[in-house]
């Protein structure tokens, strides 16, 4: 098909216009974050010089060092637990046949559609009654449960795609199902695994409602997004500080995303498969 120069130009104009639209708020935050105090207004700024002081101030005044540690602890725990449990469940659903496998799998898929708002209220009261609110556990366990839906769905798809002869060969060599999983199938599945790990990490890192509800009193357990929300309430007038804090909160996920964008996009779009 021949394409005229006008069509080609139109394509780039559209793409560039929407890219600018998508990046504008993010670049605005970045620029404001490095603005020296004398430039500051309530909105975005083009800095007259680059000043990294805001990051230091936000880090100290907003306790973001502490909040980032919490986010890392919760994120790593959720990812590790989800990976282990979802791999095992996905392995069973994807490569074995047993009674009720289908309905059980659908039960897991249900979680893809249940919004947190549908479970958060009893979760809070139940976990409070066993003393798990204001602890890392209260943040970790519900998010593992939520991530297991996607994880199981995702790993099942991977195990279904693994070549049967490989499994049979391992079996003939006398490998147990456990050995086959960890020694044979999983090493082959590193791409699928990586996608799941980065997505679950992102969802956990960005999670807001769970952190807001499960940590009602103990400020030292706030995660980074929660810390930012409270910080915003306190420092509405100093936007440079707020912007610096925003950059700190968003950076870990954004950097990972830029490095692995293909996996992020493919994985997130697959989340729509529900039936």
């Amino acid at each position, binding site marked *: 098909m021949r394409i005229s120069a006008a069509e080609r130009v139109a394509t780039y104009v559209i793409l560039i216009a929407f890219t600018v639209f998508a990046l504008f708020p*993010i670049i605005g935050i970045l620029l404001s974050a490095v603005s020296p105090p004398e430039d500051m207004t309530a909105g975005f700024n083009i800095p007259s010089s680059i000043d990294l002081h805001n990051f230091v101030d936000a880090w100290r005044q907003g306790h973001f060092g502490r909040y980032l540690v919490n986010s890392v602890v919760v994120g790593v725990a959720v990812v590790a637990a989800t990976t282990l449990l979802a791999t095992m469940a996905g392995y069973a659903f994807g490569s074995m046949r047993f009674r009720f496998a289908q309905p059980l799998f659908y039960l897991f898929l249900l979680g893809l559609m249940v*919004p947190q708002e549908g479970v958060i209220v009893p979760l809070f009261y139940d976990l409070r009654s066993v003393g798990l609110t204001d602890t890392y556990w209260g943040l970790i366990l519900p998010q593992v*449960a939520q991530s297991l839906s996607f994880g199981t769905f995702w790993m099942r798809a991977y195990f279904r795609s693994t070549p049967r002869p490989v499994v049979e060969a391992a079996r003939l060599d006398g490998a147990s*199902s456990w050995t086959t999983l960890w020694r044979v199938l999983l090493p082959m599945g590193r791409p699928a695994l990586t996608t799941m790990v980065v997505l679950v990490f992102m969802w956990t890192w960005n999670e807001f409602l769970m952190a807001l509800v499960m940590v009602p009193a103990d400020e030292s357990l706030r995660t980074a997004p929660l810390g930012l929300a409270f910080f*915003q309430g306190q420092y509405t007038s100093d936007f440079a500080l707020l912007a610096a804090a925003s950059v700190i909160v968003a950076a870990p996920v954004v950097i990972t995303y830029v490095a692995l964008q293909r996996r992020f996009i493919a994985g997130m779009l697959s989340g729509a498969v529900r039936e």
Partner: protein
Amino acid sequence: MATSRLTSTDETAAVAQAAAPARKGGAGPPGEPRRIGYLYVLPALLVYGAFLLFPLVHSFWISLYDWNGQTLATWVGFANYVDIVRDAELRSAFGHALVLIFFYAVVPIVLALALTAAMSRARVRGLTFFRTALFLPQVVAMVVVATAWSAIYAPSGVLNTVLQAIGLGALARPWLGDFTWALPSVGLIGTWVEIGLALVLFMAGVQRIPRELYEAARLDGAGPVREFFAITLPSLRGEISVALTLTIVAALRTFDLVYIATHGGPGTATTVPAFQVYHRAFETNQVGSACAIGVTLAVVILLVTVLVNRLAEGRDQR
């Protein structure tokens, strides 16, 4: 689209399995019968059951009571659900959710379709860059998105500054504090978040339409509009259904954005169901009502997902 393909292979596999349960060898998963499967599923099921399924059932149970979170609860049957229709505040919350669906789903998808049609099928240089940038709003924490857009909408923020600079200063207002404009302003943030997703999906989908179809259409004298409705739109059905599901669900689940940018205000101008769940359960002690809203929201999301998928499949079979 890899996803729609996934679904259909799933179904074929299920059918094949039902038809020939004893089939040996072959490529068709799932493999042979193994009771040990239960053991592999069990740990996940325990965590999932305790922290998702049980709370969901418990949520429904609480929703049948009038409870303030502390003293004894009173059984009220389905009164909390009736309230969703009767209570003006709740009705407006669900109404606002519909408005958000317009901004999160309809606007981005229609716009992205139009843009996809306007783009030529030429190979774009730097496609990876464009795709990464367009999809970026999807991965930035909502708290950060809300902070950035609050600065844009602030009384002396970017939007008002621009309006004044181009002589439209009369339109300037505190966007998020304005009874009429707060909800559309929040909605526009949703448009910003979702449009990239729709564009990335549709651009990928269009790449897979065989060029010959367009060439044939042009030979038949079809103009760009005919071409769009006869070829592009039907070919993108799978992508459209994925985009619809993801964006509608995102609209219905809006919480962070409203909590941070407006806290439901001014008045109740931007209150949404998810915000009402939090507000009632943890700010005004109407726990039963909060659970009823949560359960209703879950059911609505389930219905929307199934319905959108059915629509896409139904047309497939014709």
